[in-house]
C-alpha cells in the first residue's frame, strides 16, 4: 500500500474519514460510505429507541469501516469522559473522537474542557482524536498530552464554509508529529483538496456528503478531491508571485516590426 495513513499503529489506505450524521436514510448513507472509500466512520451515542429500524452498525459492518465513536453534544469535560466510557462499553473500542463543545450556536470547541477531558481519557487508555479550534498552540498542547491525532476545524460544524484560516492550518500541519485531520466546515471537493494541499493527513467529512443532493456522487467527488490534494501536496507546488513569470522563453523571439 503506497502512502498509508497511520493513526496509533492502525494503517488506513484512505485519507477520507466519513461522519455518518445527517443522512436522510440508512440506505442513502450506505451508498455514500461505499462511494467515499472511507475506512473509518464516526458515530454518536444516543438514547435507545425501540421503534427505530435498522442500525448504523450494520451499515458500517457491511462497508468494512472501523467505528470511531464521538462525544458530540457534550458541553463539559465530565460529560465527554462519561460518553467515551459508554462508547467503550457499547462498541468495544478505545478510540474516541473527543468533542467538548463550548456554545450551541457555533458548536466551537471549548479548549479548556477539551484539554482536561483529553488528559483524563489518555490516562485511562483511550486513543483520543481531538476535535479542536484551528489554533496552532492548542494543537501542540493536545499532541503533547498524547492525542493520537489532532482534528482542527476548517469552519463551524455543518457550515460548509470551507477553510477560513488556511494559514493557521498550515502552521498546525508544519509543526505536527501526529496526524492532522481537517474536521468540520468542508462544503465540497475543493475544500477537501485544499486541506490536503495544506499538509493535512486526512479529512473528516459528514454533512457535505450526507446532506448533499446526491450524497454518493458527492462522496466520490470528495474522495477524488482528497486524492488530488494529497498528490499535489507531495508534488511541490510553485510559489505564488505577484507578477507574471513567462513559461515561454524570450530567447529567440523574432523581430516582427
Amino acid at each position, binding site marked *: 500500500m503506497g502512502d498509508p495513513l497511520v493513526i496509533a499503529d492502525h494503517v488506513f489506505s484512505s485519507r477520507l474519514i466519513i461522519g455518518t450524521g445527517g443522512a436522510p436514510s440508512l440506505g442513502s448513507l450506505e451508498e455514500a460510505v461505499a462511494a467515499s472509500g472511507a475506512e473509518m466512520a464516526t458515530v454518536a451515542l444516543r438514547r435507545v429507541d425501540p421503534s427505530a429500524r435498522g*442500525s*448504523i452498525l450494520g451499515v458500517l459492518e457491511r462497508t468494512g469501516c472501523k467505528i470511531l*465513536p464521538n462525544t458530540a453534544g457534550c458541553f463539559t469535560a465530565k460529560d465527554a469522559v462519561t460518553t467515551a466510557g*459508554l462508547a467503550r462499553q457499547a462498541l468495544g473500542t478505545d478510540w474516541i473522537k473527543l468533542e467538548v463543545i463550548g456554545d450551541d450556536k457555533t458548536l466551537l470547541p471549548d479548549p479548556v474542557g477539551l484539554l482536561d477531558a483529553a488528559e483524563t481519557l489518555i490516562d485511562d487508555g483511550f486513543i483520543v482524536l481531538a476535535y479542536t479550534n484551528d489554533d496552532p498552540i492548542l494543537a501542540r498542547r493536545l499532541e503533547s498530552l498524547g492525542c493520537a491525532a489532532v482534528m482542527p476545524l476548517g469552519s463551524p460544524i455543518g457550515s460548509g464554509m470551507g477553510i477560513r484560516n488556511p494559514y493557521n492550518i498550515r502552521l498546525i500541519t508544519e509543526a505536527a508529529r501526529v496526524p492532522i485531520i481537517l474536521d468540520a466546515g468542508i462544503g465540497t471537493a475543493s475544500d477537501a483538496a485544499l486541506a490536503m494541499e495544506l499538509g493535512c493527513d486526512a479529512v473528516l467529512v459528514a454533512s457535505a456528503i450526507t446532506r448533499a443532493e446526491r450524497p454518493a456522487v458527492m462522496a466520490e467527488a470528495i474522495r477524488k478531491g482528497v486524492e488530488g490534494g494529497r498528490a499535489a501536496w507531495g508534488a511541490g507546488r510553485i510559489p505564488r508571485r505577484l507578477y507574471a513569470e513567462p513559461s515561454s522563453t524570450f530567447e529567440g523571439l523574432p523581430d516582427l516590426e
Partner: protein
Amino acid sequence: MNVTLNGHSRSLEEDATVVDAVRLLDPEFSPKGVAVALNGEVVARSQWNDRRLHEDDRIEVLRAVGGG
C-alpha cells in the same frame, strides 16, 4: 419504585436491577452496541444483572446512531 429511564418516569419492582430497566425499555434488546449510565456513571455490562436500582435513579440506555 420510580426511576427515570431515558428521560421518562417509569415504575419498576423494588428489587429491580439494571437489566430489568433495559428490558422495560426494549424487551428484545441485544446487549451488543448498547451501554448504560446510572446516575451519570457507566455500568459495565458484566454488572447489569447484579446492580440494584434505587428510588429516583436516573438510567440512560444508549446505542450508536449516525453522527459526525
